[in-house]
């Protein structure tokens, strides 16, 4: 039954290549997260703005991002937008897809976080002479980011996992893409993907633990 011999040595020799891939994976995830947070804040402000078209736009974004597969969103960024004559590189398509997804989920998290901040705080800010944008920026926003810190960590992990979908649009520099290419060369499917899985596991654990430590330090009061 077990006439399969594991060849870890041969595969481990390719580890440096895979670690380079892991760096690209991190790069995509971090970029998509940073842009995603900014966009999510913009979407949150749009939904609160009281302007119907703006709120409708933001709500549509959030609902589409949350109710369709991430893979669909990446396809849309790559093949869908291409029908308008705009062709993105796999890296850009992947980044757009994940960022779109991140922004949608984060905006929903932010909305939940805002519910926990009493409306009276904005009014207190206003009566102290702050403009409404000042009271949002200096009073509401920091608290919102703080309350949404844990969901943001989860989203970061999701972003890391989602980078593996880039392979479907031809990305071959990220961890999954590199592994796929090595697999085509060596056919050690199980060993290669097992190692890729371990690298992904370590990355997500480091992020979760790092975020927990950061939270303990940032939110002492």
């Amino acid at each position, binding site marked *: 039954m*077990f006439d399969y011999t594991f060849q870890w040595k041969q595969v481990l020799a390719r580890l440096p290549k895979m670690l380079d891939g892991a760096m690209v994976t991190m790069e995509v995830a971090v970029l998509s997260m940073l842009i995603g947070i900014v966009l999510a804040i913009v979407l949150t402000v749009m939904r609160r703005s009281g302007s119907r078209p703006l709120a409708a736009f933001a709500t549509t974004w959030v609902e589409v991002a949350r109710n369709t597969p991430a893979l669909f969103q990446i396809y849309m960024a790559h093949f869908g937008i291409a029908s308008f004559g705009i062709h993105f590189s796999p890296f850009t398509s992947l980044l757009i897809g994940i960022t779109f997804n991140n922004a949608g989920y984060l905006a929903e998290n932010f909305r939940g976080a805002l519910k926990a901040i009493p409306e009276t705080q904005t009014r207190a800010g206003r009566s102290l002479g702050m403009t409404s944008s000042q009271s949002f920026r200096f009073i509401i926003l920091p608290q919102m980011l703080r309350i949404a810190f844990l969901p943001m960590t989860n989203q970061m992990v999701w972003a890391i996992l989602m980078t593996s979908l880039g392979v479907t649009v031809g990305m071959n520099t990220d961890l999954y893409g590199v592994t796929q290419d090595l697999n085509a060369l060596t056919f050690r499917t199980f060993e290669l*993907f097992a190692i890729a*899985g371990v690298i992904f596991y370590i990355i997500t654990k480091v992020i979760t633990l790092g975020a927990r430590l950061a939270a303990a330090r940032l939110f002492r009061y």
Partner: protein
Amino acid sequence: MFDTTLSLTDVIFLAKGAGITILVTAISVVIGTVLGILFGIIRVQLGAVLAAPLTFFLDIFRSVPLLIQLVLANAFMGMVLQLQLSGFFVACMVLSLYTAAYCAEIVRGGIDAVPKTTRRAARSLGMSWGQDMRHIVLPLATRVALPSWIGLALGVMKDSALVYVVQVTELLKSTQILITRLQEPLFLLLICGAFYFIISFPLARFGGYLEKRWSND
């Protein structure tokens, strides 16, 4: 844009893909939920230290990309164990465990949300552990867990788009096959996206409504 070459056969092809998506999701959610409830209860009963191996095992499914889980399971079953399994079987197996990992977390959260004092009260009234679980914990935990569970089931439906990697032609893969042939990516992708959206959106709203209605305040 609506001047399309999409024929009836193609629509049936897409519908078949949609059927596979729903079938894979349904099977995985049912098996995953049963396993998840089991794992969740075991974790709560054993406590953090004794349940550590189980926690670690389940954590893997939440920390490694689903795509890799599918490829690994397929390679393990096919190349290492030399079993001739269909891609459909492997897809359902991996997705079930994936669902179970998240479901166990939800179940644990639900059980933890039942106040300890309430359960002690039940036990001191002479209820057995099983009675306490059935009549006290189950109804109270469901209120907390059901909205998240709806979210999980929808998440699994969206993630089932990845089973193409084990040669299962679900909705998104069928769409892609048609795109290659018809060269109308935007139109076809919009149909495919609309399908996911139409199923997911009302259920997600319903989950949100339940969450609001059942929240204790």
